[in-house]
C-alpha cells in the first residue's frame, strides 16, 4: 500500500512522529523505518513523505537540520521531534487507541 493516509487521514503524520520518537533521522531512513515497522504494508514515496515532513515542521512538531551523513559524505536534512511534537504524539497515540478500541468494538458487534 502506497500511502497510509489514503486509508485513514492523519495516519502518516502519526507514523512519522512515532518514527522520529526513536531518534532524529532524514527522509530516506524515515521511509525505510516505516516500511520495516509495518512489515512492508506501508511503502512511502517522496511525493507523500516530503509534504508530510514540511507540514509537520510547519506546525512546529518536528524540526529539520542539515547534517552530513558520515558513511556517504552526503548532506541531508535530518528531522528531530520537538517538545511540541512529543506532546502531539502522545495525544495522537491516545486518540489512536480510542479509535482502535471503538472500531474493534463496532466491528466485533457486527460479526
Amino acid at each position, binding site marked *: 500500500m502506497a500511502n497510509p493516509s489514503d486509508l485513514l487521514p492523519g495516519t502518516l503524520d502519526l507514523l512519522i512522529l512515532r518514527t522520529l520518537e526513536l531518534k532524529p533521522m*532524514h*527522509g*530516506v531512513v524515515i521511509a525505510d523505518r516505516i516500511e520495516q515497522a509495518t512489515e512492508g504494508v506501508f511503502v512511502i*514515496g*517522496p*511525493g*507523500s513523505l*516530503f*509534504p508530510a515532513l*514540511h*507540514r509537520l*515542521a*510547519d*506546525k*512546529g512538531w518536528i524540526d529539520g537540520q542539515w547534517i552530513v*551523513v558520515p558513511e*556517504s559524505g*552526503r*548532506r*541531508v*536534512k535530518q528531522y528531530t521531534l520537538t517538545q511540541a511534537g512529543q506532546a502531539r504524539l502522545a495525544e495522537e497515540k491516545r486518540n489512536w487507541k480510542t479509535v482502535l478500541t471503538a472500531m474493534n468494538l463496532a466491528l466485533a458487534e457486527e460479526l
Partner: protein
Amino acid sequence: MLSRLYSALRRLFRRQAAESELDAEVQAYYQILVDRYVEAGHRPDEARRLASLRCGHPEAVKEAVRDVWAGAMLAAVLRDIRYALRTIRKAPMYAVVTVLMLGIGIGANVTVFSIVDRFVLGHPPVADPSALMMLHTTRDGHCCGRFSWPTYADVRDRARSFAGVAAYYELLPAAIGGYGDPERVWGQAVTANYFDVARLAMFVGRGFTPAEEHLPVVVISHRLWTRRFGADPSIVGRAIPLSGRPYTVVGVAPEGFRGVDVILDAQYWVTLDNLSHLEPRTDNRRSRDYQWLAAVGRLAPGTSRRQAEAELKLVGALIARQYPASTPAADRDSGFVMEVAGSLPPRQRAAVIAFLASLSAVSLMVLAIACVNVTNLSLARAAVRRREMAMRVALGASRGPLLRQMLTESILLSFGGGLLGVFASHWAARALSVFHMAAPVPLDTSIAVSGSVLPFAFLLSAGAGLLFGLAPAWAASRPDIAAALKGEELLTRTGHWWGLRNILVAAEVAMSTVLLCATGLFLRSLSNAAHIDTGFRSGGVLMMSVDPRLHGYSPERSVELLRAVRERVASVPGVQSVAWTDAAPLSGGHRSDGFDVVGKPGGGARIVDLFMATPGYFETLGIPLLAGRAFENDSASSARVAVVNQYFATHFFPNEEPIGQRVRDGDRVYQIVGVVRDTKSRTIGEEQRAILFRALEQDIAADPSGSGYTLMIRVAADPVSVASAAQSAVHAIDPALAVFGVATMEQHMTDALFLPRLAGTLFGVFGLLGLTLAGIGLYSIIDYWVSRRRREIGIRVAIGARPGAVQALILRQGMTLAAAGIAPGIAAAWALSRLLTSFLYGVAPNDAATFGAISVFLLVVTFVACWIPSRRAAAVDPSLTLRCD
C-alpha cells in the same frame, strides 16, 4: 502556533532560500537511493533509472511541498484576519471612529484624484491613446497655434513618423431638427480619416470612408443618440436635418467620446467639406495664411515621440524655406509642438496643475490629520492592550507575528475606511459636477469616480493602514514585560510615546492651521468675487439665444428676424425692456480686436473687447449712459457708430472729448456717439478692460457672431415666468428655429463664478474637515491626559489644590500644545499661501486680517477642545480616585 506563523512569514520573505533548500533535500533523497542501488551491484545508469522510478518526478514532489507551504501561508493570513476581526468586534466604537476618520481622509483624496484623473491623466477613449498626438504650430516661437489647410496637408504628406494625421475644425454649431424641438448642438468638422487616426471603435455603425469627404454624412455622439434619438440603432443610414440640410448618419461614437480634446464637448462630427454649408464664410479656407484647423496624428508603430519630433522639425524647416511669406523667421527652427491627445490646453496647463497640486496637498493634509488622530487613538488602545501583549511575549511569542497581527488589524480598518471613502467620493464627485463654467463654447467639466481610482484608493488605504498601525503596533509588541504585568503605567512613565503623541497632536493642529488659512483666503476671495461690482444689474434678466445662420438666414433676413422677435417679446406682459447682443458679458471672452484712432497714426492698435447691441441694451442691463446717446435707429445703411465704456474713453482719449471721435478696426471705422459706465467684460476677477459696443444691425453682415445672438429680457417679476412666453414668441415667427441658452442672468453669474466657487467649496469643505478632525484629536488627547492623571489630580486636590487651579493646569498644558501647533502652522501657511496668488480675487495671499482671524478662531476652537476634559479634571473626587487603584 506562533512559530508556525513565524516560519510561514519567514518563508514569504525568504522564498528563494526555501526553494533551493527544498531542491537540495529532494536531490539528496534521490542520490541516497542511487548510492544504494550501486551498492546492491547495479550499474550507475541502471541505478539512476531505478532511483528515478521510485522517486517519481522531482518537480512533482516539490510541487506537493509548495502546496503545503501555500496552505500554511493562507491559513496564517486568514488566522490573522480572524484574530483582527475578533479584536475589532471587542472594541466597536474604536473601529467605527477609525473607519469614519480614515473614510473622510481617503474620500477627500479619492475625490481630488478623480479631478486630477479627469483633467490631467485622462485620455480620450480611443485605442492606444498614448500614441495619439495633438499637433500645434508655433508662431514667433510661441506655442500654440492652429494649422492652415496647406500646412496640415504638408505635414500629413511628408511626416513619415505618423501612421496618419487628421485635422478638424473644433467648434461648429448646428441646428439639429426633426425628432422633437429644434436645438442647437456643437460639433466638429473633421477630415475623413479622423476616426481612423483616432482608432475609435464606433458604438453603432462606422466612421467615415475617404469617399465621404464631400458627402453630407454625420457621426453622432452617444449622448446625443440616447438623448435625442432614444438610442435607436436603426438611426444609422437615416438622414437627420442639420441646419436645414439632411445628413446621413453613418455611426454613433462610443459612450464618453467627446472628441480628442480634454474638455471640449462635441456632439456630432461631419466631414470637413460640409463647412461650406454649415458655416459659410468669406475667408479662404485653402489659404496658407488662414490658420483654423486643429491637427491630431497617430504615431507609426515603432516610432518614438523623439523621432516624430525630430521629423516635424525638419518638415517645419522645409515649409519655412518654401513659403517664407507666411512663416515668421523665428518659426524656422521650432516648427511644431506635439503632446499626447487629451492633455490640457498648453496655455491653461500651468494654472490648472498649480490649482490641482494645491488641492492635492490640502487633501493629503486632511488624510494626514485623520491618520494622526487614528494613530493617537490606537496608541491609547495599545496602552490598554499592553498587558495582553506582555502576557503573550512572556509566553514566548516573538515580535514579528505580533506586529503582523496588529498591522493586519489596522490595514483591515483602513480598507474599511477606503471603501467608505470611495463611496463618499462618488457622492462628492456628483455634487461637484453641478459646477459649470461660463463660456461661449461647450465645455464638459463633469467629474465621475471611475474604476481608475480604485488602485489609488487601495494604495492610499494600505499606506494609511501601515502609517497609523506601525507605531502603535511597535509600541505594543515590545512592552516592558515586568512593568506591564505588574500593571504599571509604562507608557506614561517612560515619557517616550507620551512625547510622540504630543508631537503628533501639535502637528495636526499645525496642519489644520495651514488648511484653515487656505480656506479663509478662498472664502474671502469668493465673497469678494461675489461682491465685485460688475457694472450691470443681473437681477431680473432672462437670457435666450438663437443662431439664425444655422437656419440659412441671410444677414438681411437675420436683422428682420431679430427685430420681429424683439418687438414680440417686448409686448409680453411683465417685460420691461428687451435687447439683442452677440454674447452676454462675463462669458469668458467672446470677441475682441485691435483698434486705433483715425487721424492719429503711430499710436498702435490696442485690444478692445467687442459687444454687439441693439436699442434698449444699456437700459436692459442697467448700465448708466454717461455722455452722448445710446443706440437708436442705427441701421446697415447709416454710418457705423459705437458706444464705448469709460475705460476706453480715458485710454484712447485721455484729454479729449470722446464723443464724435472716430476709431478704426481694420477697414471698419466707427464714430463714437456715447460713453457708458465701466462693466466687467470677460470674467468677474479681471482688471478693467476697454469695451466698444457696436450696433448689431450695422455689423451683422460684415462680422457675424459664430455662436448666435442672445436676447436679454428685463422683467419686473421673476424672469423665469416669461421664459416660455418668450420662446413661443420666437417659434411664432419661425417654428424651426432652435432656441438655446435659456437662463437667468443670475444663473449665468453663478457660472461666471465657477473658479472661485469651486475653490471656495473644495477648500471650505477640506478646511472644515481638517478643523473638526484636529479638534477631536486635541480633545481626545487632553481627555486621555486627564484619565491617566486622575490619581495625580486626586492627590493634588487632597492636599488642598482648588478645582479651579486644577482646571487651569490642564487648560494651560492643552493650550500650550495648541499654540505649539498654531504658531508654526501660521508661519507655514504664510509661506505657502503665495502659491495661491493667481486663484484669489481681491485678497492678498498674505492677508493679515485672514491670518489673524484664523488664529483667533483656532485658539477658540482649541480652547473648547481643552475646556471640556479640563472640567472633568476639576471634578475629580480624591476620595474616589485614590481608593480605586
